[in-house]
């Protein structure tokens, strides 16, 4: 969307030709398609003029060096070397060049030659976002905000819809102090500081969809006014910061509350056992879990190292570490054996006997996708599973059951 009504002063001289031999540097460091023959140098006052010129040139039939005649339908090229310099000039120039074909209605191709990546050119997606301008809002303010959002989020976010999403959610927060009369509209710095806390939060939570747009807007709009009205009388700058901080805390806690879930006691152990079965090599099971071996069946540090050496890779950083390879499949019987072994050690007062519920729980863990069944459902014999749980979660589980998981894990950090 080029603003045609506000002509920009292009004091650069532009030259247009369609040959492709060389390029020349011109005034204002702009390089344009140069000519070999001495066509008259013309000066374009603004973009419109340039477009006009393009049309004119394209419409002329001309004879190239090889003697072929080119009709108006022939593609004409504009090659711009060191095109990164274009960014320094008027903001509309690149969009114009990009859409030259549309604007002129002629078959013109623009080629930019540069050493930097394309993303750095597309400085503003603002033109598109401008269409999302909410009713009754100040356009300048909005555009300034859009630029800001784009600057902040462009590194992480290439999706236009995501940016629109963010802009829509953050803009009300941005203009709120203005509407409340605390910060002047043109006081960009203050506004920026005000919004910064939310930006941090948004990158963490909103962009990852940990909280939804609705929860976000509910919370930010509900909390921020309350906290700022508490401190009426303070200066604007001080007030905005704690307001943001409290809302941030509220957001954090809201997310955390919902991110935990509890498992029945034995189910926790089943999950721990399957984690061990997935990440420990089966050959070491005897040493870790057998009750009869010396030292209470535990692998000492030294034994661990020697076991590692024997098998020819380092303690840490080995490429073959299961931790890096992801969970391995295990037969369900092995997991159950580990389960009873660790449970025996943990639950001293009562004998845990095998019963149906253990198997039911395995099935329910599979349905919860905490275990992943590898063998097809119709195969009832020798079921194999994978543990689909992260180390952090297992650690939390082990902590809640007071089980020392690290004692049993082989080659794990």
């Amino acid at each position, binding site marked *: 969307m080029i603003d045609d009504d506000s002509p920009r002063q292009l004091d650069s001289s532009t030259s247009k030709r369609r040959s492709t031999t060389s390029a020349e540097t011109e005034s204002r460091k702009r390089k344009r398609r140069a000519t070999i023959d001495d066509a008259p140098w013309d000066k374009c006052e603004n973009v419109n003029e340039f477009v006009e010129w393009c049309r004119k040139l394209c419409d002329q039939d001309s004879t190239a060096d090889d003697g072929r005649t080119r009709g108006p339908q022939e593609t004409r090229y504009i090659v711009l070397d060191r095109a990164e310099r274009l960014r320094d000039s008027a903001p509309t120039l690149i969009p114009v060049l990009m859409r030259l074909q549309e604007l002129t209605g002629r078959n013109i191709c623009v080629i930019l030659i540069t050493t930097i990546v394309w993303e750095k050119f597309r400085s503003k997606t603002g033109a598109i976002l401008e269409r999302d301008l909410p009713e009754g809002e100040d356009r300048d303010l909005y555009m300034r905000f859009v630029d800001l959002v784009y600057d902040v989020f462009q590194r992480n976010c290439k999706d236009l819809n995501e940016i629109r999403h963010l802009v829509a959610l953050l803009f009300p927060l941005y203009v709120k102090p203005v509407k409340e009369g605390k910060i002047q509209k043109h006081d960009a710095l203050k506004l920026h500081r005000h919004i910064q806390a939310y930006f941090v939060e948004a990158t963490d939570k909103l962009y990852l969809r940990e909280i939804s747009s*609705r929860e976000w807007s509910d919370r930010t*709009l509900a909390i921020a006014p309350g906290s700022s009205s508490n401190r009426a009388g303070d200066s604007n700058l001080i007030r905005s910061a704690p307001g943001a901080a409290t809302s941030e805390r509220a957001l954090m806690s809201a997310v955390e509350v919902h991110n935990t879930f509890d*498992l029945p006691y034995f189910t926790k152990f089943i999950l721990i056992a399957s984690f061990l079965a997935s990440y420990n090599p089966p050959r070491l099971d005897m040493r870790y879990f057998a009750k009869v071996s010396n030292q209470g069946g535990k692998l000492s540090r030294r034994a661990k190292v020697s076991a590692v050496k024997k098998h020819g890779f380092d303690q840490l950083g080995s490429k073959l570490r299961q931790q890096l390879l992801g969970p391995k499949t295990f037969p369900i019987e092995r997991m159950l054996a580990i389960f009873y072994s660790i449970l025996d050690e943990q639950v001293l007062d009562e004998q845990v006997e095998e019963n149906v*519920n253990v198997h039911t729980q395995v099935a329910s863990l599979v349905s919860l*996708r905490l275990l992943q069944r590898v063998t097809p459902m119709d195969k009832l014999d020798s079921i194999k599973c994978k543990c689909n749980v992260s180390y952090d979660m297992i650690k939390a589980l082990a902590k809640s059951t007071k089980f020392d998981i690290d004692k049993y894990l082989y080659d794990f950090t």
Partner: protein
Amino acid sequence: MDEYDSLTEAVFLVLPQKPAISTKAKGGLTKADHFKLDGFQRLKDVNESWEATELRHELFNKEWDLISSRIESIMSNMNTVVLSAIYEFVESAYTPRTTRAVMPIQELPTGLIFAGINVPDHDQLFRQIAQMLSSPFSPSSQPTTTSSSGTNGFAEDSDGNNNLVVILQSKDCVNLKSTLKSMIEQFLGLGIAGVINPQEGAIKLQNYDMHVLERWYQSLCDTQEHQQRTRKPPSLVVIIQDFESFDQDTLQDFITICSNYQDRIPLVFLMGLATSIDALHQGLPKSALSLLQTRKFQMQQSSECLTAIIDDLFVQANVGLMVGPLPLKQLIDQFMHYNFSVGGFVANLKYVVMHHFYANPLSILCDRSLSSNSPALELLGRGHFDHLRMLPSFQKYVESKVENDPQVAEMLLLDEEFLTLHILELVQNIREYHSNFALIFDFLWFLQSRFSVSVLKKSRRALYFMALEGALTESSTITFLLSQVRKLNSNDMMLFIEDWVQFFQASSRCQSKKHAGELNDMDRELVAIQSIRDRMTQLLEVVSEDSATSSSEIEDNDDEDGVRDRVRTIAFEEGKAGAQTAEVVRNASTTSTGMAQLSQTAALASTITTTTSRLNSTATFVKKRKLVSLKANDTEGRQTRIAQKTRETARLPKGALGTYTLLVSEIDELLARLFKTYLVCHDQIPLNEIFYYSQVTIQQKAFLPQPRASIQTALGQPELYLNCDCCHPPAGSGASMSLAEMVLPTQHDTCILYKLYVECGRLINMFDWFTAFGMILERGMDEDSNKDENDNDSGHSRKRAKTKGKKDPVNGSHKKKVGLDQKEVQARFITAVAELQLMGFIKPTNRKTDHVQRLTWGNI
């Protein structure tokens, strides 16, 4: 071999088609009664009458109805808040929101319901949600509590339902087609009147085409517009019940499609998540996630539901049947260790209740409304009385009576009519005990929440469990709480006593009495507490007056008028005292504002007290207490150290300290006595066996089945199951070997094979196995023929055939033959192997020819 009873044959359960016919066929009313009574049978050991059986059945139904309805109401109460939030969410999903930011992309409103990990329980929950959403009323009892005025309009609009709800389960949704089909069919199946044929038009649409739904929805809206006035079009709610089990790719496509139709069909998603939000983030890609506008709803944790249920049923003793410590532990362990399933808990509990009424002849007395004219007492027979007298608690009771009142003890043991009357009294006692227990337990809880630090806190469930085990009265919890009470300073002590009195007064136990004559234990305790409070108040008054004027006027009236008067005079005097103190303080060149304020407040308080028309004694004391503490605070806050010192010396006159200590120790004693008397273990109460279910094994067998252990026992020690007398160890071996370790030819073929199997390694050679099997059979043959020759007793084999029933007819039938047919041995061997394979002990392997792989290790 056709008569051979193989396990591999299918077994069909043929239910009687019409019970009436079978009754006629079998004849007699007993069969009909059997069905009518759900299998309740006459208990032969007490020789009870049919009426008693019927009564037990009736009581069971009554009791269980009570329990289940209570549980249901608890469960629905637990989630009311969340449910109404969900309702609100769905209602407001498509109402224009002016305050919120306008989103560039329309997102599908999605409620994430975190319902806990026990998936089987979710069925009921989601049915409840669906029902609630499709009903026109908000679940909160007052429909006007909803905040926005827009949603209120139709809450009163009672006709027609608002939302159309379907539940999608993963089992119906294996791929995208079936998902869409299931959803559309369910919506269409909701049968809204006036729906036009969605398949009109030139092209016949497939039944999974969203256009079908779209047209149907349009027609629905059209008809509704005709019928009703201005009204929000209904939202279509799709409940995805078990998110984790869904195929994630299907779901992703499904969401994308639905979001494209969102502008035409107002769809709302509700997703049931069993684990955490991570499941959603892992399951769906960003592109799908960005189409959802999620909102989280946390259902009540099921462990809290359990606590609430136990609290309501047993602690508050709202039901007749109680569960003893062992079964309760079993119930709770089952819940906490394995499944978090409230449904499982309820099923388990039902079993307990059923078993109590099924097997215990005395359960006819387990009736909350047992009175002198209830039929249960008349049904008591000789057997009942014998049972009753055998109850340990009753024996204990009689023994205690022997010492005090030998005549009563004798009557109890001999006179049945006297016993009948006495039963009533004892049952009454138990009921009394329960209600006292509930109150004091609540009080203990109150005390704990007031004093305990979080580390030492015990859950209600744990405390109740201790009480059941009888460990509560001696527990450290109570000792700790008592010591905390002793450490209170005078003001806090006063506050505490006030709360204490109010706690007792607020309880239904002390309120319900109508006549002054019907004083129960709690009323007596209340009186005791009140008297302590009164004395405490007086003492504090004395102290505060002493501190100001050193005058001590103690009035000792307990009637209300007296109290009022006293308050007035005290207030007046305190006004004076305040002024005087102010003078003293001014003399001591300190600030006088505190005292001036104090006198003002005192005067104010006195006016208030006089204007109060109905002077509740508690209210007065509260005011006075405030006054006292206010005074203390003010003076202590504002005075200088010198003034404070002078005050301190004046504050505790001679004797007051001693009185106070005495009072504190009295409070301490009272508390200790309360806990000791009323939180006593239930097994101290006579006849508790009628009300407390205490068996645990049968419940364990039913709810913690161990199939592998049972099979292994059956194979290893078949005599335990068959109860036969043929399988005894040969005479020579003696006691050195147990029966389990021996292979006896009289045992079943599969058992023999299993015992041989146990001795094998990973791979079992079929031929060796077969040979060993044949040897054992032959050995049995020899013994048999020897025996036959020696004893000439042909009844032996007949007996065995009888005891083993049809189980081993072959064994019996061929015994008389001298030689063993090799073909028969082979056939029997193959059958047994097939059985072992079916039970999962072996499987064929390709590793070695003629070998099978052993699959089980160790004996469980």
